[in-house]
């Protein structure tokens, strides 16, 4: 909910809980890659669509030497390259005066004094009532410094219903294990109230992810089947085509488990598995998601090797071109055992999901970029159309595709036309891109507007971050205690190692072909 309510009869009829409020967006690390590729194009698109509040400005704060003019040029280039809508010269001329820049070091108290002064000037010029959104597009190591400096400079307003709002957006990763995550959260909590903190996971801003709740709870036909009685298993796949690229420095210390599973995939899992919320309220939904994290069965002990596979990509082909193995990538240690692929089998120990395996896989250098959640229903009884043991009917699958094509499909069995009774699986496809003529906004656009509106539904709460780390730590600890110097390899451009196939095939199931 918004931190502060004003009595404005002219905004009646506009859903205030979803209406962005006047504010300045302060981007720490405003001269960086995230800002250039995602944040500034997102703000530009919002402005072009008329979604931004009338009283709005952006201030980039970073170490790079730049002035307002330089920053506007930086932004323009980023928007030209990455915006979903083309840059229009006339509109740009109106938009660019809203962009400002302040050069400063994250640990310099003087810089924060200048920041405060600059923000006050911007407020006065744009009629902004002191509301600020601080976006920390900075390395995790700088979060603590930045947050403390903000507080010390008097830039964090209390949540008292009267003061302007101060909201902070923190990018993943929040820590690299439970202990460090708690430390980051503790620092955030010392300086901001939990309702001012927005831990962003851009996956949750994607249209299909938001559609999970709409599909589950807006249709009567799915929810009665959404349990262990009817669902055989669930597969979640997040496959990336790219290798480690320019992120080797970060990635080699993190690996796929930290980079993908602890945040994106566990958040997807909670949306798929959660109980119906009784109201579309941020905390109620987050409570229900948290319940799922609380029910995750720890992966430890003698079943560990049957439940977890990690691997690293070796040399192979990407779109027909030779690509090096992970250990030959620039910036990666030659003896690195960092996993670029993880496959898991996990269970949610609650009434609804008892005994239903969730198979998860994520990796780099896969044959294609594809993220999907597939719900495989149980087979029909082996009679009538399914009586042929040599050729059993393929079970129904509801697949939610998250990228690159957002949509969902349902595989059903149908009779082929003709005199013979031949049953064949067909796929009913629904794609956002071609079903609706309108373009979906980018995830960052949606999420930034949510922060300006004070809606935290699609953001991670502290308990969720820590619970997911607690669960992931069980796996990390097992790996670190094994002190292995080798992990399985898979050829770049393939769907992962044989060990991952064995993990699922030992249960008489198969990974889906995407």
């Amino acid at each position, binding site marked *: 909910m918004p931190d502060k309510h004003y009595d404005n009869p*002219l905004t009646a009829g506009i859903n205030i809980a979803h209406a962005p409020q*006047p504010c300045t967006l302060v981007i720490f690390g405003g001269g960086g890659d995230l800002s250039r590729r995602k944040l500034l194009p997102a703000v530009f698109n919002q402005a072009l*669509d*008329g979604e931004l*509040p*009338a009283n709005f400005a952006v201030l980039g704060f970073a170490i790079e030497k730049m002035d307002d003019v330089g920053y506007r040029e930086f932004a323009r280039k980023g928007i030209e390259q990455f915006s979903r809508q083309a840059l*229009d010269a*006339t509109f740009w001329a109106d938009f660019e005066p809203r962009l400002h820049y302040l050069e400063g070091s994250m640990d310099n108290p003087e810089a924060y004094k200048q920041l405060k002064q600059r923000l006050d000037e911007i407020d006065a010029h744009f009629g902004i009532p002191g509301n600020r959104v601080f976006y920390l597009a900075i390395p995790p190591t700088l979060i603590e410094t930045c947050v403390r400096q903000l507080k010390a400079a008097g830039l964090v307003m209390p949540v008292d219903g009267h003061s302007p709002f101060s909201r902070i957006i923190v990018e993943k990763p929040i820590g690299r294990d439970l202990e460090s995550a708690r430390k980051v959260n503790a620092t955030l909590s010392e300086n901001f109230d939990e309702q001012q903190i927005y831990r962003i996971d851009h996956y949750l801003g994607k249209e299909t992810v938001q559609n999970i709740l709409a599909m589950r709870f807006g249709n009567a036909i799915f929810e009665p089947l959404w349990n262990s009685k009817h669902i055989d298993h669930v597969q979640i796949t997040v496959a990336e085509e790219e290798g480690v690229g320019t992120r080797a420095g970060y990635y080699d210390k993190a690996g796929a488990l930290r980079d993908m599973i602890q945040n994106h995939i566990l958040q997807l899992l909670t949306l798929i598995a959660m109980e119906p919320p009784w109201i579309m309220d941020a905390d109620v939904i987050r409570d229900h998601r948290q319940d799922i994290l609380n029910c995750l069965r720890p992966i430890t002990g003698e079943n560990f090797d049957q439940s977890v596979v990690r691997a690293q990509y070796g040399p192979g082909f990407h779109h027909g071109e030779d690509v090096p193995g992970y250990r030959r990538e620039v910036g990666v240690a030659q003896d690195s055992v960092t996993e670029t692929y993880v496959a898991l089998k996990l269970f949610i120990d609650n009434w609804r999901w008892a005994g239903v395996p969730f198979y998860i896989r994520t990796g780099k250098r896969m044959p294609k970029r594809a993220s999907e959640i597939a719900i495989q229903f149980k087979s029909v009884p082996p009679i009538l159309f399914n009586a042929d043991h040599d050729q059993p009917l393929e079970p129904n699958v509801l697949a939610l595709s998250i990228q690159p094509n957002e949509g969902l499909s349902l595989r059903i069995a149908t009779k082929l036309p003709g005199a013979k009774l031949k049953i064949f699986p067909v796929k009913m496809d629904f794609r956002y891109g*071609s*079903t609706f003529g309108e373009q979906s906004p980018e995830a960052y656009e949606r999420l930034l507007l949510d922060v300006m509106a004070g809606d935290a539904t699609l953001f991670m709460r502290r308990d969720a971050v820590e619970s997911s780390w607690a669960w992931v730590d069980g796996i990390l600890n097992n790996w670190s205690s094994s002190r292995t110097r080798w992990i399985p390899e898979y050829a770049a451009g393939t769907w992962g190692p044989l060990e991952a196939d064995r993990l699922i095939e030992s249960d008489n199931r198969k990974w889906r072909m995407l």
Partner: protein
Amino acid sequence: MNTSAMGNKMRNTQPRRGSIADIDAALRSLWSEFHQDVSGGHTVMRACMSNLIIYCDTKEEAALIGKEIPAIVDIHPARVLLLIGNGQPKKGNAESNVSIYYTELNSGWQVCAERIDAIVTTEAVDRLPSIARSHLIGDLPITLWWASRLPPPDAGDIFFQLAELANQIIYDNMGWANPAKGVASTTRWVAAQQDSKVVHNLAWRRIAGWRKLIGQVLDPQTAPDALNSLNSIEIEHGPHALAMTWVLVGWLASRLQWKAVDGKRLSDSELVWRFQHQQQDIKVVAKRRPEGEPLLYRLLFDWSRAEQPGRICFERLDHDRIGIDETMSTVPPRVFSAQIPSRSALISAQLAHRSREKIFEEALKASNSMSAVFQK
């Protein structure tokens, strides 16, 4: 199969002319030919979201609407029934034209809409509701777009019968000859509707950008006391935009609880209303520019008190932008993105909107009060 391009990507088949009784057969035949001749078997019917009944009086209006249909169904795939009440069928009293709209995908074809035109003579206009009724797709919402220049209730039976079929009625007050009379009859009719029926004036969506901007810029956070102390508003609009101006003022009056006290015509191009709120007078002047488009061009809000000026003047700069006029305002100048939506964009957006809007209905009631003081 003959086809024609409709812009960047949308195409349609050549309309198939026939009798009203031939409509179903013509549709089946078009589909069949499309599968064989164009799509090579790779046809997808996009999720059909609505039935859209459009009523207009003349073939000239129908021709204009026909150009807008591709843009509407591109956003909101639908079965479109275009009913032309004063048409000129070539044979007899009534005839039909049937076509389908489609677009090319990477790997095939996608049909977005089926369009059925029913053209009748003035004498046969009472047959249109039955034609519409028998060609609606079941299980889908039905919207009536009343594209006649007559205020809906003033059209009589043809409107009431078509409205009976629909879950939503969209009308447009742009160009009404007598806005005061039209507002009065429409308000009475809207008030009499059951809760399940959505009634929408396109002018309400046309002024949506203005409403949002005014609400934000005059917000008590940024302009303290402005809303409580407003004492004068001047609105300049283009030709045919008086009814839209009327709705905007009605909205302000309903939200700010102003009571219409008086209203008069100062000249052919200028009206003035006097409202009261908490013993304070608010004067609203609406001036028509001699030339231009049917738009709101300039809005001046004044909440000045003795020795404390407070003014903001919005000015439409072009089709995409509204600016704050520095010379007339006490707030810093700024420019906002405010594109003038096309009528097809307004319609397609409204098709997806399926609940009654209380704020609009209250604005309509306030507009009616403004008509009442005018009629005294």
